């Protein structure tokens, strides 16, 4: 709650309501950046419609000196720039909070609240007088609210000037006009309101080892660093920006120094079926290849994924989940693809999956995904979501180990083949379930027939029971053994805690924040975040070691809980679901509330607590 008595420096949330297509993105990015450069932990969530222009859009910024950067629905400050959404925007402000609105047109009396302070700033009027051209006026109106917030929240205006100088180094005129807009908002606030507010900024030094980036950017960079050369895709929200970023990075870092030609090939396919087919073809030939998609695309890829699984062809698939089923809510987040990913395609299949929690893990897991896909000769999924993929996250600076060498798996060279009597594609020579493979064009002895139809260990067509089972049973063993190759779970054990909590992906921040709150109320809970599938053996153990394990995830059906039941052998009765699947990012209060309710149901709430 915003309150004059409590020091609210570097601990507040603000929300900005605008109309999409008006250029508010750069204003909001500027806000994020200035907070970050003042050394204060910050996160941004872009709530946007599946639309290009004219619909309401919001940007949420959370400033938290403790580093709690999950979404919070408690907004101390609302910048209401869209009259169409005034009513709900004003309603969302916490009691004691502040609303900044465009007072060019008077605010409907009925929208006023007694427990909230209103700051009317004539943004439109001021910009009309100062700037020429309709488009410029609209853009500058957004920049002007940055100025007003700078005054009210005590942001460093010199930093803003510095940022603009960097951004528009080649267009000095824009530095001036943007600074003019900043000053309009800033000066008006200083002259008319008491600045700063109790919710305000204070310089810190908590961001110097961090960067701000999205998961999709990080995943794309991981592909570049892993040495991926072929990317195939079909545009889909929220996965598109992976290939956009890959293309941009490749344009900068992947040009042949002599010829200027591309050391990569990106194919925008006709659909997701073709996209995954292209990846399979490229991987079959020995390239590191990937595709990026979301739920609907993943559904289309199913047949091909079964082929890659059975014919044992590597493939890397980034699934940036959005709210389903069907087209669902394309610009809202969810973790609803867990089943679809791990059991993709008909028949008996099971796929390796990695579950990053943030952009940092998107980068490192992208690299691991190629290593694991080639080592196990099978599709590997990197399963993120819209929140991770498209929102701005503050994460530790990425590092690259110069000693990294790609794990290309068991690929026979021409020399190997020359020395061999005979090569059989699907023979378990080493007893680890992973056969040797050859690449086309390398050696005549390496030739074999890749097929999705029944085949024996020699790669020959078969309809024979034993020969068929020999291969599919080995593949099952192979995939199971990947449990040791995927990233281990992240674990934080509370001493002697009777309760455990298992979660996945982007839930991390909200869960850790919630656990701190629960701990303050003497509810001790051990934490585990699964980061890979097949599950590490410690996952089942963790569940069995606790009386009750809360499974926190973002889908309606408790897919993670069900997967844990089926795939770890842990008792279903020991687990209880805490779910949030409304499409926005998970907040700590969802977790606290879910856990508390579950404890109450179990009769386990300490008296007088929570």
């Amino acid at each position, binding site marked *: 709650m915003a309150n004059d008595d409590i020091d609210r420096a570097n601990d507040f949330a603000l929300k900005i309501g605008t109309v999409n297509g008006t250029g508010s993105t750069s204003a909001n990015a500027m806000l994020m950046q200035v907070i970050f450069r003042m050394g204060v932990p910050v996160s941004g969530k872009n709530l946007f419609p599946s639309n290009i222009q004219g619909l309401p859009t919001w940007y949420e910024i959370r400033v938290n000196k403790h580093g709690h950067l999950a979404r919070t629905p408690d907004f101390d400050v609302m910048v209401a720039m869209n009259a169409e959404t005034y009513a709900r925007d004003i309603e969302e402000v916490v009691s004691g909070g502040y609303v900044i609105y465009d007072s060019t047109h008077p605010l409907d009396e009925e929208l006023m609240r007694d427990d909230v302070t209103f700051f009317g700033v004539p943004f439109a009027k001021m910009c009309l007088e100062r700037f020429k051209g309709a488009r410029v006026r609209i853009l500058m109106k957004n920049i002007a609210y940055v100025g007003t917030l700078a005054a009210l929240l005590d942001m460093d205006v010199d930093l803003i000037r510095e940022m603009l100088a960097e951004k528009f180094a080649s267009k000095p005129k824009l530095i001036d006009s943007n600074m003019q807009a900043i000053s309009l908002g800033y000066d008006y606030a200083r002259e008319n309101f008491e600045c700063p507010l109790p919710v305000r900024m204070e310089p810190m030094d908590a961001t110097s080892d961090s960067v701000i980036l999205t998961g999709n950017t990080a995943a794309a960079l991981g592909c570049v*660093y892993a040495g991926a050369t*072929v990317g195939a895709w079909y545009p889909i929200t929220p996965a598109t920006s992976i290939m956009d970023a890959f293309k941009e990075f490749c344009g900068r870092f992947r040009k042949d120094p002599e010829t200027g030609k591309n050391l990569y090939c*990106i194919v925008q396919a006709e659909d997701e079926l073709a996209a995954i087919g292209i990846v*399979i073809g490229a991987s079959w030939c020995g390239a590191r290849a990937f595709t990026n998609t979301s739920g609907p695309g993943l559904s289309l890829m199913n047949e091909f994924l079964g082929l890659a699984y059975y014919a044992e062809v590597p493939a890397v698939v980034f699934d940036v989940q959005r709210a389903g089923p069907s087209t669902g809510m394309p610009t809202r987040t969810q973790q609803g693809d867990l089943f679809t990913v791990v059991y993709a395609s008909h028949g008996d299949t099971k796929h390796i999956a990695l579950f990053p929690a943030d952009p940092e893990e998107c980068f490192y897991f992208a690299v691991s995904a190629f290593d694991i896909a080639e080592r196990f000769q099978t599709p590997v999924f990197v399963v993120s979501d819209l929140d991770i993929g498209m929102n701005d996250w503050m994460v530790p600076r990425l*590092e690259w180990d110069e000693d990294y060498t790609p794990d290309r798996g068991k690929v026979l060279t021409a020399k190997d083949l020359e020395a061999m009597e005979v090569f059989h594609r699907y023979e378990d020579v080493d007893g680890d379930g992973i056969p040797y493979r050859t690449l*086309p*064009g390398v050696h*005549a002895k390496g030739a074999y027939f890749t097929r999705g139809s029944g085949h024996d260990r020699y790669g020959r067509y078969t309809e024979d029971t034993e020969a068929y089972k020999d291969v599919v049973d080995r593949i099952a063993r192979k995939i199971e053994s990947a449990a040791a190759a995927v990233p281990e779970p992240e674990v934080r054990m509370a001493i002697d805690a009777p309760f455990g909590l298992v979660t996945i992906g982007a839930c991390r921040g909200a869960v850790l924040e919630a656990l701190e709150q629960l701990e303050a109320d003497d509810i001790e809970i051990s934490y585990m975040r699964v980061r890979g599938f097949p599950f590490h053996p410690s996952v089942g153990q963790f569940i069995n070691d606790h009386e009750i394990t809360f499974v926190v995830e973002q889908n309606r059906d408790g897919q993670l809980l069900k997967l844990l039941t089926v795939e770890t052998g842990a008792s279903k009765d020991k687990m209880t679901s805490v779910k949030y699947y409304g499409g926005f990012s998970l907040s700590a209060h969802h977790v606290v509330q879910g856990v508390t309710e579950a404890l109450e149901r179990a009769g386990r709430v300490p008296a007088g607590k929570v």
Partner: protein
Amino acid sequence: MTYITKPAVRHPALEKNALGLTRRDYEGAMSTLCAGCGHDSITASIIQAFFELAIPPHRAAKLSGIGCSSKATAYFMNEAHGFNGVHGRMPAIATGANAANRDLVYIGISGDGDSLSIGLGQLCHAIRRNVNMLYVLENNGVYGLTKGQFSASADVGTVSKRGEVNRHGPIDPVSLALTVGATFVARSFSGDRKQLVPILKAGLTHRGFAIVDVISPCVTFNDHEGSTKSYAHTRTHSYEVVQTDFVPLMTEITAEQDRDDVTAVTMHDGSTVMFRSVAEDYDPTDRDAALSFLRASQAKGEVATGLLYLEDSSEDMHAFENTVDRPLVDVPFGDLCPGSATLEELQKEWR
């Protein structure tokens, strides 16, 4: 039994190609198709074309989808990698393979079900990308493996073995390919090896997507009276529009080329394709003319054959994408990974 290999005994007097290989070196497993299947004749022509061009078998990759035709990749070139993918999706696999390794010779074998129904979109887009490959469409008008349903190439009025009459208009792969911009379009007949082999050789040499629609009668389900894809119907209704001869690079060009009625087109590697129009004024380098000629001949119930259209200077997918000349699979990791210093520098932009 596609894995049954034929005995490797060679007659010492067998003809050898420039690599010192015999035709037998280009053979594959025993065919399991029906006796008399057109597809097996096409396989023989493919073997002949690869043999004559002296392509090292292990430098070729054979790809196919699902269906009788798609089985044929197993019946030639044992020493080439083969990929029998999923129904109608071979063009995507070929696109990816070619993106990764542009130096291999790619041949795709498909059928009318694979290409014109389930995989119609894939075919069109592989053409648009101009993937450098030879695409052989073994066209028999029926689904063989599922026992005789009409395919999308079945003509209106054609009668199935069970006596049903097809009412749906056919998709003609040749007209389709011309419409979506194919740079090499041919039609032939499985029974006409003399015509087919030079076309296949030219298609393998063409830089870009070379589609060859080969009418290939299904002896089991579509070789009866009332079928327009039977041996008898094809023999009586097909006619050669252009005669094609293929002269590989470094081969001495004979006096034939100097004849008035012969047009020579030089391929990107210096090989030559020579056309002799049989139909009056047919110009295989004029897309619009070819298309309207084909429409007219189709309306008359005729099947025009030959290398019907060739755009010799076409740019393939790699030209569009401006990829390096060497295969991407040959680029060392050190040239692909920007390294830690670059990462550090890059991240200054994210502060």
